[in-house]
């Protein structure tokens, strides 16, 4: 037996000693102050102007997209949306610290990471309108993005399932000798799932180069963090798994960038997982199905609105002399126009032909699926008005 985990190195004590909360201090990495100036003595990560602007504009783009799509949902143009307002830095700056070959497994509020990878407005729209141009073929609800070309795993609604999967994916990357890691995003709520425990423990034992990135935004729908766990956040669990852990201010893009960069180095060099807890706040409603006013105060929201990560980064950019207000304004206008145009365009794109209802269940449709499709097509042909989305292209080929 490897005694590492058993009796060696354990000190003896002769009075009952309680190990209690508070005996470890898990501080939070902050580099930027609310106004964007750098904390005294802070290690500012190396970030080129180009990268800094890209982060900034991606965050702005996501804010615009979120606002517009929430409105589109209200207008009944899409069935569902989920905004990341206030948390843009966590997703964008962490993605910025990765390499393109790193796999991203996200929860659902990390559209910023996807946008940073290069997902276009057009691609976002295709997904949200479940159309035939969407690589996932419109089978899932809006915001369940996935793009193989960008190494962004298709999102799955059941919470926490991607956590052990990320361990396995990272193990595969290691076995393949790839200089790549897997980043796995999840909320502090999802961290209560059994899959969280399984995934982190397995990653630690099996030395998987994965970054587990928890967005602790204070809520899981209506459930405040205090009713989710009683320990010191999610970071305090890292210790129990023997996983190196960093807590970071999730609204501080530079801090998130620095933490993730460091985590990636460790994961790759030491071939082990790293846990990051990014402290933030879900300024948005949970989703368009939610109304937070019944479970939290306007004051609380306002307090956090003041910590806006976009403003904070803008402050820093300005202090660096990198912020061209004029150019940025134009850029924002372009983004807005693009979103509006794409919204219009996408409403014209049809959903997949009905034949796709049975593909991808298996590699090839099985006999029962073939039978069911044949019957279904006959049925649609008989009642074309009842199935307007597909009856027009029944015999497309």
């Amino acid at each position, binding site marked *: 037996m490897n005694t590492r985990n058993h009796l060696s190195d354990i000190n003896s004590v002769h009075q009952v000693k309680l190990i209690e909360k508070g005996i470890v201090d898990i501080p939070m990495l902050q580099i930027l102050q609310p106004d964007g100036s750098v904390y005294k003595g802070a290690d500012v990560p190396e970030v080129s102007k180009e990268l800094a602007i890209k982060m900034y504009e991606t965050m702005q783009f996501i804010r615009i997209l979120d606002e517009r799509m929430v409105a589109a949902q209200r207008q009944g143009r899409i*069935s*569902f949306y989920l905004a990341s307002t206030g948390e843009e830095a966590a997703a964008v700056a962490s993605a910025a610290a990765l390499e393109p070959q790193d796999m991203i497994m996200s929860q659902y509020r990390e559209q910023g990471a996807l946008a940073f990878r290069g997902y276009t407005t057009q691609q976002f729209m295709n997904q949200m309108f*479940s*159309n035939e141009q969407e690589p996932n*073929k*419109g*089978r*899932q*609800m809006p915001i*369940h993005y996935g793009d193989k070309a960008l190494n962004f795993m298709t999102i*799955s*609604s*059941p*919470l926490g399932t991607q956590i052990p999967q990320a361990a396995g994916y990272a193990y595969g990357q290691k076995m393949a000798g790839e200089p790549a890691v897997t980043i796995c995003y999840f909320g502090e*709520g*999802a961290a*209560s*799932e*059994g*899959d969280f425990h399984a995934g982190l423990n397995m990653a630690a034992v099996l030395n998987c180069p994965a970054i587990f990135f928890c967005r602790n935004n204070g809520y*899981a*729908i*209506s*459930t405040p963090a205090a*009713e*989710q*766990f009683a320990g010191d956040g999610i970071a305090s669990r890292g210790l129990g798994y023997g996983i190196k852990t960093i807590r970071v201010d999730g609204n501080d893009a530079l801090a998130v960038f620095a933490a993730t960069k460091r985590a990636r180095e460790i994961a790759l060099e030491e071939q082990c997982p790293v846990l990051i807890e990014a402290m933030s706040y879900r300024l948005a409603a949970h989703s368009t*199905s*939610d109304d937070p006013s*019944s*479970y939290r105060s306007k004051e609380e929201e306002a307090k956090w609105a003041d910590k806006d990560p976009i403003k904070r980064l803008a402050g820093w950019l300005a202090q660096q002399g990198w912020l061209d207000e004029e150019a940025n304004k134009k850029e924002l206008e372009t983004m807005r126009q693009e979103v509006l145009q794409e919204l219009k365009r996408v409403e014209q794109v049809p*959903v*997949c032909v*009905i034949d*796709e*209802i*049975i593909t991808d*269940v298996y590699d090839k449709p*099985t006999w*029962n*699926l073939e039978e*069911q499709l044949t019957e*279904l097509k006959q*049925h*649609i042909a*008989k*009642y074309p008005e*009842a*199935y307007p*989305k*597909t009856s027009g292209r029944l015999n497309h080929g």
Partner: protein
Amino acid sequence: MAKMNLLQAINNALIIAMEENDKVMAFGEDVGHFGGVFRATSNLQEKFGKARCFNTPLTEQGIIGFANGLASQGSYPVAEIQFGDYIFPAFDQIVNETAKFRYRSGGQFTCGSLTIRTPYGGGIAGGLYHSQSPEAFFAHAAGIKIVVPRNPYQAKGLLLASIRDDNPVLFMEPKRIYRASVGDVPEDDYTLPLGKAEVLKEGNDITLLAWGAQMEIMEKAAEMADKQGVSSEIIDLRTITPWDAETVAQSVVKTGRLLISHEAPLTGGFAAEIAATIQKKCFLHLESPIERICGLDTPYPLAHEKEYMPDHLKVFEGIMRSVNF
């Protein structure tokens, strides 16, 4: 009598159960202060306190594990799983624990006082993970009962019966009609029997069997068939296990034909069990093969939801196929 929608009827049943017995506790994700994402547990925390109606951490296996322990202690947990699609992390706790608790202990310990509530079903643009009808996965696990109401009146009476029944009950709520289904509901306490199907409409040519939100689709299809001169007998199964084979068999002996419909995929769905049993019990009376009008053998798709659904047109076609066999 009051007009209630299905959610209100459930809420009302919970209030009655919690008023009557202070061992009844309601919990689950967002169930406390917020009243659940569908608001089925609205106001319970205000009325009965945080100790009896509370949020849990986000862990379905934990919720049911906790509920099993609480039930075995003698309390009456009413645990909510936010969507039927998210009940699977609790599958082990339900199938290996809840269902076997009494048997393995020779009746010394039981989870008989447990009720698990969960919304199920499609038709709400929910795609793969907000649309599933998982009843058949649980119907193979002896030891639990599975109950599905079709309207507010049924919901209240069956939920109260489920909470009080000395067996663990999986109570599946048809979320598509949570608000759409409105009806008269007595404000007083009442229960409806578990394990008993209900004949909604008598008829002679074919028996239509379904449960939950699918009932209104059966009624619509029956109307269409009626216009073709086909008289349907409509049965709401209400309890999936133990199911009321006798009522169904009696009807089939009369009509000679059976059509079963559910939203869950065809293969391995509960219609298979019913068909297998009825072909045996009514072999000499069947005039045509038992029809199953069900979901496709695929995950539940979003863009093709309408096509996926076993709607009234498909049921109608099934009826005609059966009578024209």
